[in-house]
């Protein structure tokens, strides 16, 4: 079975190692992983800015690049939600494209959702050791229903202890360009998230979305926390962290 990996623009630019961890996870589970070379962005920045025309153009580009695979896997809840939920909105009035988009949506999965529900929890041996807390990112949780999947997988790692933080489902305040346009409000929201992370005493906060990752890591470092690690779940599961 062929899996098309949509790396996402943030993994591509900021944390490329997460892309390789995702590949290792998918290959261990027995899938052939293909990374279409000319992929760019799912179009979410345009969509959330109100530029739906550009969002449609980028959606069509992604559709053409990925519709031939058996599955499409995305190591991000928000890009996954964009493809699986929001694209359909964009092509409401175009029955042909809508049908193709729906087929794409059906075979598109957030990474942990894919490993649990398609790959039936096949994981490589991960030597990751330590205490962690898990932050549920908004789109993964509320658009895609990713809640139990990462926890189920983390529970399979023998040397990991998960302590839930207060309000783990509360938004971290990232919100894409919101974090720049309304930086002070966003800063106040992520500050509360960091307090909740600290209260668990965990050595690492683990999550499934790059936006939240950069936001939380950026705030932790700004308030002088050099110790708490901020890790993508793919890194933990693949034993790359």
């Amino acid at each position: 079975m062929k899996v098309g990996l949509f790396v996402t623009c943030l993994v591509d630019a900021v944390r490329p190692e997460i892309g390789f961890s995702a590949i290792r996870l998918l290959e261990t589970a027995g899938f052939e992983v293909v990374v279409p070379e000319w992929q760019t962005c799912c179009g979410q920045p345009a969509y959330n800015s109100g530029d739906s025309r550009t969002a449609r153009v980028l959606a069509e580009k992604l559709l053409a690049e990925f519709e031939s695979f058996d599955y499409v896997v995305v190591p991000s809840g928000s890009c996954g939600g964009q493809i699986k939920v929001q694209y359909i909105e964009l092509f409401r009035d175009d029955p042909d494209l809508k049908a193709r988009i729906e087929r794409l949506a059906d075979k598109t999965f957030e990474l942990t959702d894919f490993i649990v529900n398609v790959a039936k929890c096949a994981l490589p041996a991960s030597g990751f050791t330590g205490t962690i807390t898990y932050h549920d990112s908004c789109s993964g949780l509320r658009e895609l229903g990713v809640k139990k999947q990462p926890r189920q997988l983390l529970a399979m790692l023998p040397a990991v202890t998960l302590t839930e933080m207060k309000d783990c489902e509360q938004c971290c305040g990232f919100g894409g360009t919101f974090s720049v346009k309304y930086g002070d409000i966003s800063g106040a929201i992520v500050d509360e998230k960091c307090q909740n992370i600290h209260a668990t005493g965990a050595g690492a906060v683990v999550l499934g979305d790059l936006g939240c990752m950069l936001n939380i890591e950026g705030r932790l470092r700004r308030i002088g926390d050099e110790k708490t690690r901020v890790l993508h779940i793919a890194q933990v599961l693949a034993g790359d962290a």
Partner: protein
Amino acid sequence: MEVQSMHFKARAGQKLADARLQKNLKKLSEKFVTARASAIAELDDFEAIRDAAVERRNRALENLDGWLDCFERNATARGAQVLYAETHEEAARLIVEIARQHGVRKVTKSKSMVSEEIGLNQAFEAAGIQPVETDLGEYILQINQNEAPSHIIAPVIHKDKEEISDLFAKAHSTTRKTEINELTREAREVLRGHFLSAEMGVTGANFLIAETGSVAIVTNEGNEGMCTIMPPKVHVVLTGIEKVLPTLEDLATLMRLLPRSATGQQISNYFSILTGPRGAGEPDGPEHMYYVLVDAGRTGLLGGEFQEMLRCIRCGACMNHCPVYQKIGGHAYGWVYPGPMGSVLTPSYVGVENALDLPHAATLCSQCAVVCPVRIPLPDLLRKLREKQWERGLRPWYEKVGVAVWAFAAMRPALYAFGSRVAVRALKWMGGDRRRIRNLPFAAGWTRSRDFPAPSGRTFREMYRERRRP
């Protein structure tokens, strides 16, 4: 109320810096969020009740003119007069006229957000009529120089007990009380005189019932009864045209969700259904009853992509659960309705161009849609308002240029790959040894409160290409 939504950013900044407000806003999650969660958990099948509520609200809205006619017929048959106002000004003028006809000098008021919309207190004062707010929260705001409410069901959530103690001592010229029961007793003593001397009572409406021509009102303090059943000669119900429900059964369904979603109560302390003025032989009720039903932008949403917003039953759950509202409170939003529902209603009612920040000042985390008892897709509506701004060219030039440049590259993978390679190297260099950027020139909003973790210096795709090379 005057629209101040264009000052959102500056006001939000002040609110974030207000340590006392920040402490007071914690009450939202401590009180409302927790209480709602347990009240909803008690229901056998919350999702099915929500579906029924959506269906019943939709049935009312899809034939709104018909149900309003039905309401008017039945309310008139029971002796009330139903008046319609197309604008805020017209609504205020109608109510002042009613007061004049009946020689009213003092009006007691129960809580109504539509009254804030139309600026009713100012209209009364201009006409030499004294309005007295009797909802405790609204009363506190009125004696604080007519401060605006900051929440639709907890208007004074932004204040703490200490502030209210100070305010009472000053406004009532009494010794400063610190116990809540002493404070409420003092308010009761002041308000009692007004209840007995007012000639008219104004209330809002949680719902209007078409089949009976009634108004349903939910309160926790019970002063609404003092405004409507006790002495006043005249009762005026002021509300929006969208509040009509076809039947009492519809009301029963909605009432299973409203108090639970709002305050986490199974049922509010008081719940009145009032039908017409006092009839012959009846012991209480007003001599005259009027309905002033306000449009003021509502018909503009009917039949369009924002119609779902009219389902709103004003429970406040969306703002209680909103990470942005929790940090800035209601005043920053700059008009009557704050939080997610307000960020949809304000641009819809006062003009998209007068509230450019509101649809963007949301993380689109979707928690509001999760808790909305009538399933209003608030994040989708906020995004549609963003689309409207974009289509009308209302976004700032740098945003338009930014999206255009990014989109141009994103459609040209070779250019995009090259651009990313340059950018990640530049950002890595900026990050230095500590691998983090403290000041991003084009994203100062980000780096004011957090670092930007520097990229590792090479893109995934260039590394992938190298590793796969045979």
